[in-house]
């Protein structure tokens, strides 16, 4: 606890020390969001979140850059009182260092802060080393990312725009203007190491990558991905193969893969399609709605079932108003998701968004035969001020 207080104090000290110089950048936002949620045919739960973020870059000199990202949230509403250990869930930290802390845990509200970026970057010539909590993003597709071994995120957690970071050492060597070799090694909260080598290059209009390494000391992984285009639209894909280290002689590897296509028409209509094959998935939605929403995400658990399909359409109703409709379908367990988003630009710094979410799936029961929640809907109204 003391350590985290020190880090926060250091953060604000840095902010003031470097305020007078032009070798820094501070940006962030404040968001206020009201969520109205119902599960099955139950009553409505209301949650209000005040969400603030600071991102500070300090360009120490030509070679060194120091980056901090601080995320603060105050959450008030029914879930805080009704869901047991809600503060533990909200305040969990999957990194090796626990840089999250719940500083208020009252009956009706929680205050939680997290340093989700805290890194020092050193570059010289074609070489770059990044040490600390950082986001290592190897994804090529947009909804699920089998190649993203270091920080998986949930598509449904739309309000966490920056996505989590991991505690890692990242070595990158740039071979050319659009190619590099990278060795990244991270350690998670269970003291397990993930380490992998990535080679990315560009040829014939395609970005192509290959990767291989060890995932959380449990599996050997090998994979690849690409981003290119077909008929002017974006075409990308990823695949990762996992082989358990313990049973190296068995032929029981598992594959996860995605395929993505998007096209933007001249009238601004943007269509996206993505499909997931998840070898680790079950044959039905055995955990019910809770598993989808509170899923303990990892590259080996991108979705509860084996197959999922995604489609979305975005359209600018006017230059200031953007409408998006997104849908997802999982044939095993008849999982259906539908999510409309309406975003309105109020000014250069203010945005108002209304986001809907609807989930449904076949009825499921727990081990004792009790029915689990299998449908739900939510409406979010969010005001964002960026600085």
């Amino acid at each position, binding site marked *: 606890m003391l350590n985290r207080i020190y880090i926060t104090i250091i953060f604000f000290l840095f902010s003031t020390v470097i305020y007078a110089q032009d070798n820094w950048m501070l940006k962030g936002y404040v968001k206020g969001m009201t969520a109205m949620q119902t599960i099955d045919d139950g009553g409505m739960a209301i949650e209000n979140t005040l969400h603030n973020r600071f991102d500070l870059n300090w360009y120490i000199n030509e070679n060194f850059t120091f980056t901090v990202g601080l995320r603060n949230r105050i959450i008030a509403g029914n879930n805080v009182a009704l869901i047991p250990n809600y503060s533990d869930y909200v305040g969990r930290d999957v990194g090796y260092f626990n840089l999250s802390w719940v500083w208020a845990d009252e009956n009706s509200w929680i205050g939680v802060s997290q340093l989700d970026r805290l890194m020092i970057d050193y570059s010289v010539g*074609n070489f770059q080393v990044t040490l600390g909590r950082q986001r290592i993003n190897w994804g090529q597709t947009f909804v699920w990312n089998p190649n993203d071994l270091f920080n998986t995120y949930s598509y449904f957690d739309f309000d966490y*725009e920056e*996505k989590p970071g991991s505690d890692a050492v990242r070595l990158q060597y740039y071979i050319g203007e*659009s190619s590099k070799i990278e060795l990244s090694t991270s350690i998670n909260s269970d003291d397990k190491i993930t380490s992998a080598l990535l080679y990315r290059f560009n040829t014939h209009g395609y970005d192509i990558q290959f990767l291989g390494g060890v995932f959380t000391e449990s599996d050997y992984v090998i994979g690849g991905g690409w981003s290119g*285009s077909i008929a002017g639209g*974006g075409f990308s894909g990823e695949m990762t193969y996992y082989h358990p280290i313990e049973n190296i002689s068995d032929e029981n590897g598992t594959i996860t893969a995605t395929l993505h296509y998007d096209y*933007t028409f001249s009238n601004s209509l943007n269509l996206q399609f993505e499909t997931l094959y998840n070898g680790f998935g079950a044959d039905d939605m055995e955990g019910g709605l809770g598993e989808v929403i509170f899923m303990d995400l990892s590259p080996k658990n991108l979705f509860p079932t084996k197959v999922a399909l995604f489609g979305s359409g975005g359209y600018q109703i006017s230059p200031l108003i953007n409408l998006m409709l997104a849908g997802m379908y999982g044939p095993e367990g008849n999982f259906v998701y539908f999510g409309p988003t309406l975003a309105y630009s109020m000014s250069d710094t203010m945005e108002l968004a209304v986001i809907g979410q609807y989930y449904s799936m076949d009825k499921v029961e727990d081990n004792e035969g009790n029915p689990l929640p299998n449908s739900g809907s939510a409406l979010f109204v969010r005001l964002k001020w960026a600085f």
Partner: protein
Amino acid sequence: MKINLNVVLILFFALISGNILAQYDITAEEIIKRADEKMRGKTNTTSMEMQIIRPTWKRSVSMKSWGRGMDYSMTYITAPAKDKGQVFLKRKTEMWNWMPSIGRMIKIPASMMSQGWMGSDYTNDDILKESSIVHDYDHKIVGVEKVESFDTYKIEMIPKEEAAVIWGKIYKWISKDDEYIQVKSEYYDEDDELVKSDFAYDFKKMDGRLIPTRIEIIPADEEGKKTVLFIQDIKFDVDLPESFFSQQKMKKIR
């Protein structure tokens, strides 16, 4: 008095233009080439703000950009706050977007490049200089006119058949002095309807060249709408080798 002089000048040019056009010691293509070279240089770095003005609202975006010929450019967004820090890289026909907040390099497909920003009258094609006003058109001097305070050549530009150009025809008015300023342009669609015009104002010497620091782009037949570019700083022929336009540089630039 001044008006009278203009009328006289115009009449004079109208009378003699048929003769004089054949006798210019400079071709239309050469004029466009010099005008293009003047605003672009071999390389350039530019800071600018773009305002989108509509009858009921206004939005603006600010950026720094680095360019080398037609093939290489990099753009760093400095405002608005929500987009600050994003970088775009163009290398020949390929384009990437670096989003530092999520640490992701996104390859942008061609279909996404034709979108204007926030409904701007300035399209990505204008920003990225996908088509060349020199190589993609046939040029002809069709007159000599006075625009604002400049004596200009009026040049008609018809796209070459094989060129991937969205316009049916362009007129440009280019100053006759050594500065080769693009004082005014008109863009027509394939049905010969005027789509938009642009006008250059507020000339200042920057890096030894006379530069319009305010360019207004006005869509035809749309009352109260315009897009205004403010050039805050521009430098030419700075040292920007091809290797500058790299994914590594995208992550460092600011």
